[in-house]
């Protein structure tokens, strides 16, 4: 890891200010992706701004139609939250299957979304559920938030403070693990919403998480979903899975997610 300056502001306002004052800042949430990346010297921020002091970013609330999760809430907290389990059980289950137990004890929802790893789980739930990302500057729809692999609409000094998930009629997440890393090789989140079915796919796309309106239309039409409409050239290929295999898995996982949601 390269040297850096460390800051621990006690409010998001102070955090935003610290970001503005730094050359090449990085926000540290749970650190479960950032720190391994910095250890490999693949990231070299001049300043690391920890959100650990911003206690108001932690917490979960539910009013029956919306579940709001603070950005610094850990995956473990989401997984074990009675509110989330009751309102959106698929989201609790997804959180309970991110990484391993120790990652879930540190990793946060805000960190995961801001990083937008193309194989992360939360982006699929956020996009499929049509969540709203609340930041220090504005509110962003999930459709507008994810802009590409490791890319989001966030501005440099903009910090996610919370995510609001509308409660769907039903939802389920089907994930096929990368055998080695256990990240999603393909993950499909299906949500039955009042606006119709929404499908978000993670792990597979070259541009990160994406929706498939074709699969959504199949489901809306009462058909069994398949992945024939997915363009193979838009998918990732690596030593674990070719684009063709990923495309196939999208169909299988979509089918399983729809079946599980009931």
């Amino acid at each position, binding site marked *: *890891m*390269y040297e850096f300056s460390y800051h621990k502001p006690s409010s998001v306002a102070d955090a935003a200010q610290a970001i503005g004052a730094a050359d090449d800042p990085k926000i540290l949430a749970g650190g479960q992706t950032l720190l391994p990346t910095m250890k*490999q010297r693949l990231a070299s921020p001049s300043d690391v701004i920890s959100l650990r002091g911003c206690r108001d970013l932690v917490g979960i609330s539910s009013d029956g139609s919306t579940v709001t999760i603070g950005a610094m809430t850990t995956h473990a907290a989401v997984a074990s939250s009675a509110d989330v389990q009751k309102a959106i059980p698929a989201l609790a289950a997804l959180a309970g299957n991110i990484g391993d137990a120790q990652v879930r004890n540190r990793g946060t929802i805000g960190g995961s979304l801001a990083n937008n790893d193309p194989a992360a789980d939360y982006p699929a739930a956020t996009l499929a559920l049509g969540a709203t990302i609340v930041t220090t500057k504005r509110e962003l729809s999930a459709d507008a938030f994810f802009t590409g692999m490791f890319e989001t609409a966030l501005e440099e000094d903009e910090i996610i403070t919370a995510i609001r998930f509308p409660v769907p009629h039903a939802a389920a997440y089907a994930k*096929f693990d990368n*055998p*080695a*890393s256990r990240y999603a090789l393909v993950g499909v989140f299906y949500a039955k919403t009042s606006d119709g079915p929404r499908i978000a796919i993670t792990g597979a796309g070259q541009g990160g998480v994406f929706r498939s309106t074709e699969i959504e239309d199949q489901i809306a039409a009462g058909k069994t979903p398949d992945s024939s409409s997915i363009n193979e050239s838009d998918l990732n290929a690596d*030593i*674990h*899975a*070719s684009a063709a*295999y990923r495309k*196939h*898995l999208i169909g*299988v996982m979509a089918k399983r997610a729809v079946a599980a949601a009931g």
Partner: protein
Amino acid sequence: MSATGIGASVKRKEDFRFLTGRGNYTDDINQPNQTYAYILRSPHAHAKIKGIDTTAAKSAPGVVAVFTGEDMQVGSIPCGWGVNNKDGSPMNEPFHPALAQGKVRHVGDQVAVIIAETYSQAKDAAELIEVDYEELPAVTNSEKAIAPGAPLVHDDAAPNNMCYDWELGDEAEVDAEFKNAAHVVSIDLTNNRLVPNAMEPRAAIGDYNTGTGEYTLYTTSQNPHVIRLLMGAFVLQLPEHKLRVVAPDVGGGFGSKIYHYAEEAIVTWAAGKVRRPIKWTAERSESFLSDAHGRDHISHADLALDADGKFLGLKVYTKANMGAYLSTFSTCVPTYLYATLLAGVYTTPKIYVNVKAIFTNTVPVDAYRGAGRPEATYLLERLVTKAAKQLGMDQVAIRQKNFIPADAFPYQTPVALQYDSGDYEATLKKAMELSKWTEFPKRKAEAASRGKLRGIGISTYVEACGIAPSAVVGSLGARAGLFESANVRVHPTGSVSIYTGSHSHGQGHETTFAQLVSETLGIPLENINIEHGDTNRIAFGMGTYGSRSLAVGGEAIMKALGKVVDKASKIAAHLMEASPEDVEFKDGKFTVAGTDKEVDFGTVALTAYVPHNYPHETLEPGLEENAFYDPMNFTYPGGCHICEVEIDPDTGTTQVVGMTAVDDVGRVINPMIVEGQIHGGLAQGIGQALLEACEYDDNGQLTSGSYMDYCMPRADNLPDFKAATETTLCAHNSLGVKGCGEVGAIGSPPAVINAVLDALHDVGVQDISMPATPQKIWQAIQAAAVLAAAE
């Protein structure tokens, strides 16, 4: 059987320190005034070094010294085993530098060492070193490496990238058998390259005593004396009395910590230059690029059978990837630990084997758990199952028909080995019972009702371990003896220290060896200490590999204990005023037959050190004995592994739902420990078969260089194991022991793959390579469907 002697599942003595965080691994050790080393490694698979500029690095904060290959002019890292070509000429053995000399030959090759006050400073400074590389084309696959026009890893030192082209048997004689054959069954297969991945990364601390001129190396080694020999005599020219090598607690080895590595020589040599201790600890990503890999064979085999399925002859042609340099035991693995096992458990009368060992731009390949025997077993057991299918025979029946019968031992194979004992029918029968083999169709049908493809696979194997008779291996090219030493020191109060040349890094020697002592001397375990891993404390040692610790190291202890009992009996005879031949020793007490005279072991020990009333005319004081034991033959564990899998045809995912292993490892000293060893081997065998892929891209970059991409077996990949033993005793050692460290990894991979292919039979898949990953299985199912549609 006593509660602490032979045959008891004694809880391990070493566990307390490991469970409380008080183990003492190399990286836990720190020396006063210590510095830290970072090794700059080649990012290229093959390149000329046109220049290295270390100026900026040398003046970076905290840097103590920077050395390159130009500074470190020392001997070649030696290979411990010479193998001759078919024509009798010696193998090509290119120079193996500690720090690159003008050329790098694999990604990870050592280019420079940076020594600094902290590790971070050393690593920061490494980025300031400018290496002017001229990249060369690289080759990583052994078949491509011997094709005309392939890049030459060692230029003129190894034309055609050939290390050796070796054979065993008479090809013409075997060809004659094929002429009479009713059937010939052929197979092409790859034994996948693996990364050993002991959980403790390698580490080394070099220290130079400016007062005495002595060097000390602390290192993560399975055999500190071997490192002292190889590094001292060949690389750095340091005599034994000026070089101490300590291998403290070591966190797993599986073969990868046998070898003498460049980093050991670098920190030792550099400690003399900077006159301060230097610590180096590998990061895991460095381990992937510098720990010797395992396996990597490409083979073709033909089996000739008569009309009834009796094996007549076998021909095997193997290309073995050596990597960029010859690691310590690399050359013997695909020859004397592989070709000699190709008779397997069968009476095949004629066998011919040709092995080409080939240099490539990859990390050196050497022995990894099983070393050669897993490769032999995989080839044979895939081939035999394929033969059964091709001939329409039952896969168990074809094996039984060709088994070496239990009454045929000692059995001389056509490939040089003489098996001393075994009962392959017995292990087969027990494994079939434990796995409920005959009820498999019911389970298959039930799985099918859930949409799953269920398959069962079997493997019957023999291996050769307890390595090894020095005279035999010497005649085959080994450049060392493979005996073991032991010293038994009885202290005045009757407690005992054992100094053994075997090294324990998970095997539980501190317990198993203590059980031998407890059984022999009748003293409690808490009065016994097993000392190992330090060349200054242990007379000599050849170390731990080839499942040899008990069969060779344990026998050395037994021999030394025998000498102790002999001498103690004479002292006891003197004390009891009896004739030594009338003295009996049992349960820690010396008695004289037909009398009530009795003296206990403690009294004899005290007498030996306080010899007031003592037979000084005939005996020296003290009670301490040394022994060296050189085995008369290898030992031959064997057994039967049965695997059951369920495959999800939609995704290609395989779940191992049953793994049964019945192994004959000879006499069992500690059943709990033996079972644990077998479990560990099974996990590595299943890992090889289903999960672990070490892959290079065309440029020679390792694409599976971390746990993000190299799939380590985890708890949810594996089933509960059914492990049992069935015993025939080794016929040539006093304990009757064979060895249990590697059997799990030797027998299981073909059982797993045979199960996968059995499951996939109904969807038309005929072949699959290891590791049978979900993607590969899915692709095979697709390909079979396309083929079926075309027909």
